[in-house]
């Protein structure tokens, strides 16, 4: 009965959020602002991706930016190859390759002439890399903080490789000067309403798909693994398989966010798969509520939104970092399950007060006290 009502509440909250983000373009006509909002929504998708692995399965992936960056590069490569010939050097070769004395298009650039392949690769490349890393991590039963360390190290390595291979990746500069993505006759320019809608619709779909996944038995088992990985093994589940599955799904979603990010930013850069953004994702997730897909997405939008408006305003030019820091501390101290748990915390307070009045069986009081109820 309780869970039934909670499920309805949760679905309603998700629906309201999706309607709101889909209605934004009706009220915002400023293209610059819309582009900014589209960026926040892409961060929301990225944060949702981490919530899948960290919030639901307890896998703290500090290398999430690898997937994000690779997705972004896939899209950028496809768009670069379609840039009008004047900018691309002889024979359609990307300009930076010409500057680096590369004379023929490298083999792994070839398939990016096709959009279908690009969209596939943007999901599959991050997923395959996650699968390989995950295979070693989870077979070896690495868990907890060590997963974070390994994934962080992976991130640094891949980041260095991309910067180092300037001839093929554009190095520090990344891949810039891109054409506009066009699919089914629709142009997805960075400042267009179409791109905003693309991001918002994808976030909406992912929220509900993610919710469905986490309400399936696989989702349940993942949450059980988060609670007590060893115990799950003695029920006959191959824990490593489950962990690697969600690790790959999370990577693919982050890759999707990366592809969108290239559309919104009009370039790909090694900073997209650098340590700062990877750590930011963790903060978004934690602030919003990592064990809730909506919470994680909301956390990213709120944090990057506040960050953006504070750093843009003259009054807070010097102090905005301080204010952000204070916000994080307040959330971590008073809402350990993130902003999304505000409702639960208030309800819990009220319940406790109500229960404090008439003396009841101690057993029930124990059951009802939601000391650290995790928002789900």
């Amino acid at each position, binding site marked *: *009965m*309780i*869970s039934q009502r909670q499920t309805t509440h949760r679905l309603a909250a998700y629906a309201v959020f999706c309607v709101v983000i889909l209605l934004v373009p009706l009220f915002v006509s400023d293209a610059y602002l819309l582009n900014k909002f589209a960026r926040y929504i892409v961060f929301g998708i990225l944060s949702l991706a981490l919530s899948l692995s960290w919030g639901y399965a307890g896998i703290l992936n500090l290398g999430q930016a690898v997937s994000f960056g690779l997705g972004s590069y896939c899209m950028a490569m496809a768009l670069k190859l379609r840039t009008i010939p004047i900018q691309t050097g002889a024979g359609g070769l990307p300009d930076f390759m010409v500057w680096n004395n590369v004379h023929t298009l490298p083999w792994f650039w070839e398939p990016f002439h096709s959009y279908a392949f690009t969209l596939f690769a943007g999901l599959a490349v991050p997923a395959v890399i996650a699968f390989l890393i995950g295979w070693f991590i989870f077979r070896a039963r690495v868990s907890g903080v060590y997963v974070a360390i390994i994934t962080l190290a992976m991130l640094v390595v891949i980041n260095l490789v991309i910067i180092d291979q300037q001839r093929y990746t554009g190095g520090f500069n990344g891949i810039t000067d891109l054409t506009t993505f066009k699919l089914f006759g629709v142009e997805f320019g960075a400042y267009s309403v179409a791109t905003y809608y693309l991001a918002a619709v994808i976030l909406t779909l992912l929220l509900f798909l993610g919710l*469905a*996944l986490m*309400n*399936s*038995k*696989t989702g*349940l*088992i993942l*949450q*059980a693994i*988060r*609670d*007590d990985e*060893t*115990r*799950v*093994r*003695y*029920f*006959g*589940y*191959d*824990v490593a*398989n*489950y962990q690697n*599955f969600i690790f790959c799904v999370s990577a693919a979603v982050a890759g999707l966010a990366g592809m969108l990010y290239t559309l919104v930013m009009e370039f790909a850069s090694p900073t997209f798969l650098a340590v700062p953004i990877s750590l930011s994702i963790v903060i978004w997730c934690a602030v919003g509520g990592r064990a809730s897909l909506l919470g994680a997405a909301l956390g990213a939008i709120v944090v990057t939104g506040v960050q953006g408006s504070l750093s843009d305003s003259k009054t807070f030019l010097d102090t905005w970092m301080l204010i952000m820091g204070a916000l994080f501390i307040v959330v971590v101290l008073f809402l350990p399950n993130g902003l999304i748990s505000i409702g639960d915390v208030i309800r819990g307070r009220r319940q406790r007060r109500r229960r404090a009045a008439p003396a009841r069986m101690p*057993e029930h009081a*124990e*059951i*009802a*006290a*939601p000391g650290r*109820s*995790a928002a789900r």
Partner: protein
Amino acid sequence: MSNEPILELRDVAVDFSGFRAINGLNLQVAKGELRCLIGPNGAGKTTALDVICGKVRARAGRITLMGQDITRLPEYKIARRGVGRKFQVPSVFRELTVRDNLEVAYCKRLGVFANVRRLGRSAERNDLEKLAELVGLEDVLDERAGYLSHGQTQWLEIALLLAQDSGIILLDEPTAGMTAQETMHTAKIVNALKGRHTLLVVEHDMAFVREISDIITVMHQGRVLAEGSASEIQGDPAVREAYLGQRGIAHA
């Protein structure tokens, strides 16, 4: 009851960085039997369960389940062959509701992709609710397991084993921390499991052991010291010495 052993340990040895927890352990359990493992602290009882379910690896010896070698299999494969385990420290999924705990334990299909498609995941809802009733948890089905009292957590663990429905159930001190009344209720449930399941129970509470067991195996210093009915065991001088010896040390 057939005499052919369903579970057999032959000369099994387990080391913990030099310390020999089990040393040449031989044990045969027949199908449908309820075997109690007793012995002084440090006799290797829990380690014996651990080595059967794959939590620790045997350094030597062979463990066979229905004639098949399971000595080197990973835990989840041993579980799939029908070995369920209850740990000494109650381990339930604290963040999940009681219902979801049971749902996880009900593991007929184990693959990731088979389970992704199971959206409703409540085809066996009625069965699980009946199980909860059996152990008296029907009123707290939607509570998070972390909020259960100690007794309720123990019941939930037993319900998890019932949901898992393994052929062989390994129980490590199922009555730890229970009142006398709760202990007797547990004995009733355990007795009901006998026959359909094969049980291996580690227990200190002799009243409980007498209530449930057919054959008792006494372990001491990593090997079997004696085996027999409750009265045979109690009359065995070697057993007395083992327990007395321990008490002597404890009182020193």
